[in-house]
């Protein structure tokens, strides 16, 4: 009976599926045993666990299609990753929080095991470990300090770990070398954890509005920077990292407005605060599902082509022989096409902006300059995904382009993984009238806002029905007759189809050159990394020659000993109460 109901390709992977599935779902199960207020203050954490339980399955399905070797080790890595990340949600303010976060991060060494640990992978892991380590350090400080002092450390930790504007430079490095299933899991689960942690523990406690007033402009700049850099980037995985930076900063923008106006007496401000709280969840769902999808789909073609730059991969997705409608669902969402969760999120943002414009003078004028950055960031970020999809999945590939063979079984896993994510990208907008009845968010949905969301949901429903009928029945047109209209030299197909840079190059001189180098690296991030390198190379000043001599060892030992003694002396004096007022 079992063998009839469950397809063979799933049966083959069933033991791994069960173990990984248990690891990703068990923290959610454990949350029911705790005395959690899932309809109130603990809702953000509960939602994070729901997302990770679902993404655990999608990522597993994707691993089956993506990896051909070391699947046992990768599965073991995911078991540790999902369980420890889930435990981070459950343990609350305790020393276990930084410990589990570090365990989750270190488990990625197993997840990376099929990559061969070349330079790029080592850099990717190092960047991840560095960001996670610093965050864990701040989380540790929060755990041990009293609430009123520790809360600032708890503010910094999520900002670093999520890739907030200014702390983001590690994220593109991680994406450059990581396997796509891991990057998808990071984007969908690991990057949203800090935001949910902030929402659960910082927002209810933090009375200082200055923090939100600082987050707001920086987040606006982050959206601008992320969107534009993504549009011009040449490496598809880094492009998606910058797109993540844009989305994450948009989420921080929502949190900042929610926090800034929360608790005000003015009804307009309360409306804004509540509505941005809802928008946060809508955008979170959009980011988590769509970005994971994009990293999976783009990562898959990058892996199969074994190429690095976008222009080299022109049309590679077409060789996969999987429907472009399926492979493009997340692109449709990022292009804010009606019927997707991306549309709901961006349309709602516009709606709230119109509300802000109607507010009394002082409150709204400061938002107008921010709009320059936010709109340009959102628009260019959206076009970055169109540029990716059209050049990778619609252009015609060169016959010389070599691609790894994909078996039917692997294709089934691709369809399963992408289908599981794509389903929610298009169903969530239609299901909004029911989603908004969830008791944890229903009190925040004011009548005007509800009407708006219902309109958006209706539009999504109509569009979804129309497009589905068009795709399924092709009632308007079916390709039957083909003819080539020769416009010169009988060229047809790969010689004429265009690569991704044709979209971005015309804007490079007027816009792109201020953000990216000619090689396609971010000028800002490269400068930050160069600065770090200079700081870390400080010891180079003390080295006398480039060629090491035997006696140099004693010199270096002397420098190290002096540094250690200085450190111990500092700790001793601090313990005596020096330097502390």
């Amino acid at each position, binding site marked *: 009976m079992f063998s009839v109901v469950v397809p063979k390709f799933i049966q083959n992977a069933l033991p791994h599926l069960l173990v990984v599935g248990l690891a990703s779902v068990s923290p959610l199960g454990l949350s029911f045993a705790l005395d959690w207020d899932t309809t109130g203050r603990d809702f953000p954490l509960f939602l994070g666990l729901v997302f990770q339980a679902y993404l655990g399955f999608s990522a597993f399905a994707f691993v089956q299609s993506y990896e051909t070797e070391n699947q046992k080790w990768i599965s073991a890595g995911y078991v540790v990753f999902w369980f420890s990340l889930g435990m981070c949600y459950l343990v609350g303010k305790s020393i276990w929080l930084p410990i589990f976060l570090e365990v989750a991060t270190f488990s990625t060494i197993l997840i990376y095991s099929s990559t061969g640990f070349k330079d790029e992978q080592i850099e990717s892991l190092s960047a991840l470990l560095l960001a996670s380590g610093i965050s864990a350090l701040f989380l540790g400080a929060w755990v041990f300090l009293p609430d009123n002092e520790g809360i600032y450390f708890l503010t910094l930790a999520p900002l670093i770990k999520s890739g907030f504007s200014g702390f983001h430079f590690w994220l593109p490095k991680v994406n450059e070398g990581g396997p796509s299933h891991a990057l998808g899991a990071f984007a969908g689960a690991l990057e949203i954890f800090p935001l949910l942690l902030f929402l659960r523990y910082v927002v209810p406690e933090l009375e200082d509005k200055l923090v939100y007033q600082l987050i707001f402009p920086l987040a606006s700049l982050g959206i601008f920077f992320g969107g534009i850099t993504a549009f011009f980037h040449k490496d598809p995985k880094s492009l998606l990292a910058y797109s993540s930076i844009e989305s994450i900063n948009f989420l921080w923008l929502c949190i900042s407005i929610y926090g800034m106006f929360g608790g005000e007496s003015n009804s307009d401000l309360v409306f804004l605060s509540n509505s941005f709280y809802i928008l946060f969840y809508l955008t979170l769902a959009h980011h988590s599902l769509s970005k994971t999808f994009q990293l999976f789909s783009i990562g898959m073609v990058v892996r199969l082509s074994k190429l690095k730059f976008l222009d080299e991969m022109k049309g590679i997705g077409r060789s996969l022989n999987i429907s472009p409608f399926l492979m493009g669902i997340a692109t449709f969402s990022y292009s804010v096409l009606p019927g997707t969760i991306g549309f709901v999120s961006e349309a709602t943002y516009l709606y709230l902006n119109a509300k802000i414009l109607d507010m009394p*003078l002082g409150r709204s004028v400061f938002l107008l300059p921010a709009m320059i950055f936010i709109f340009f960031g959102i628009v260019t970020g959206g076009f970055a995904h169109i540029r990716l999809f059209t050049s990778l999945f619609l252009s015609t590939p060169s016959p010389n382009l070599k691609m790894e063979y994909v078996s039917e079984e692997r294709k089934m896993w691709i369809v399963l993984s992408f289908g599981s994510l794509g389903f929610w990208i298009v169903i969530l907008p239609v299901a909004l009238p029911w989603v908004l009845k969830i008791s944890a968010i229903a009190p925040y949905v004011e009548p005007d806002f509800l009407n708006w969301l219902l309109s958006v949901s209706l539009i999504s429903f109509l569009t979804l029905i129309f497009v589905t009928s068009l795709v399924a029945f092709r009632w308007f047109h079916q390709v039957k007759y083909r003819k080539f209209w020769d*416009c010169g030299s009988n060229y047809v197909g790969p010689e*004429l189809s265009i690569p991704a840079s044709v979209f971005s190059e015309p804007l490079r001189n007027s816009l792109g050159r201020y953000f990216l180098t000619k090689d396609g690296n971010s000028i800002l991030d490269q400068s930050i990394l160069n600065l770090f390198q200079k700081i870390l190379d400080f010891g180079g000043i003390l080295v006398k020659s480039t060629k090491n001599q035997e006696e140099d060892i004693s010199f270096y030992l002397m420098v190290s000993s002096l540094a250690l003694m200085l450190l111990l002396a500092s700790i001793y004096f601090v313990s005596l109460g020096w330097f502390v007022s």
Partner: protein
Amino acid sequence: MNLQIEMNLIQCLVFIIAPFYASGILRKVRARVQGRKGPPILQPFYDMVKFFKKTPKDNPNSGPFAEISPALAVYSSLFLWSIVTFEWVPFLLIPFFLALYRFSLVSFAMETATSFGGLGSSREILLSVMAEPTIILMILVAQSHIEISLTPVGALVGILFLILSFIAILAELNKPPFDDPRTHLELTMVHEAMLLESSGKSLGAFELAYQLKYVSLLGFIIKLAVEHSKIIYNTDLTLLFREAVVLPGILVLSIIMGLWEGISVRRKWSWVPEFMGLAFLSILILGTLVKLS
């Protein structure tokens, strides 16, 4: 109740009539300016009927997007036009249906993998990247309740705002100085270059979609002007006037557009980002000034 019925009647009339004559008038005026007699006003409609009767022939590279894109373009434009005419949902949704329209065209052009399709798509994206923030800003203003006062400064700011909005619409409609649809040289065009591989009813659908998009954006700017100025007072008749002015408004704007197409030329592409960036900043500054006033 009677007023509501009258309003709905006017809206229905506008909805049906405007797409038929607007583009024809533009072509007629453009031809007259250039010293030609020009085609009949209903020629775009006759062309569409002719196209819809023919079976399309597709490019050898065409795939699933060639099958759905034409209908999708009509769907998005029809939605646009219905939003502008009946306002059954807020104007805020306009950019999203413009995005759907754009995506259907670009996907169609990219799938055919011709150099003209690629070139047109690239230019379409360039124009959209620069015009879309401005259009979003316009629509935000349209949706808000900002009103421009009837003072000399207020009138100047309002007129400047409308001119800049009109420029953004020219970019969105691929009109001069951003594009030159009258040349019929594929290398100089955007919209037509993308549709070069379409034929029969697919081409008819794309043409219909463009006509609907054209009247939608003109209708929108007229409503924007009337809604946010104090030219008319806020009585029941105001609402009637607001609807009634759309049809003649589109006529006037089509004549202006025809004159403009007849005398202007397309500027070089490197000029577009700078100019549209400037237009965006100007609209933002004007918006701030209106808010401050």
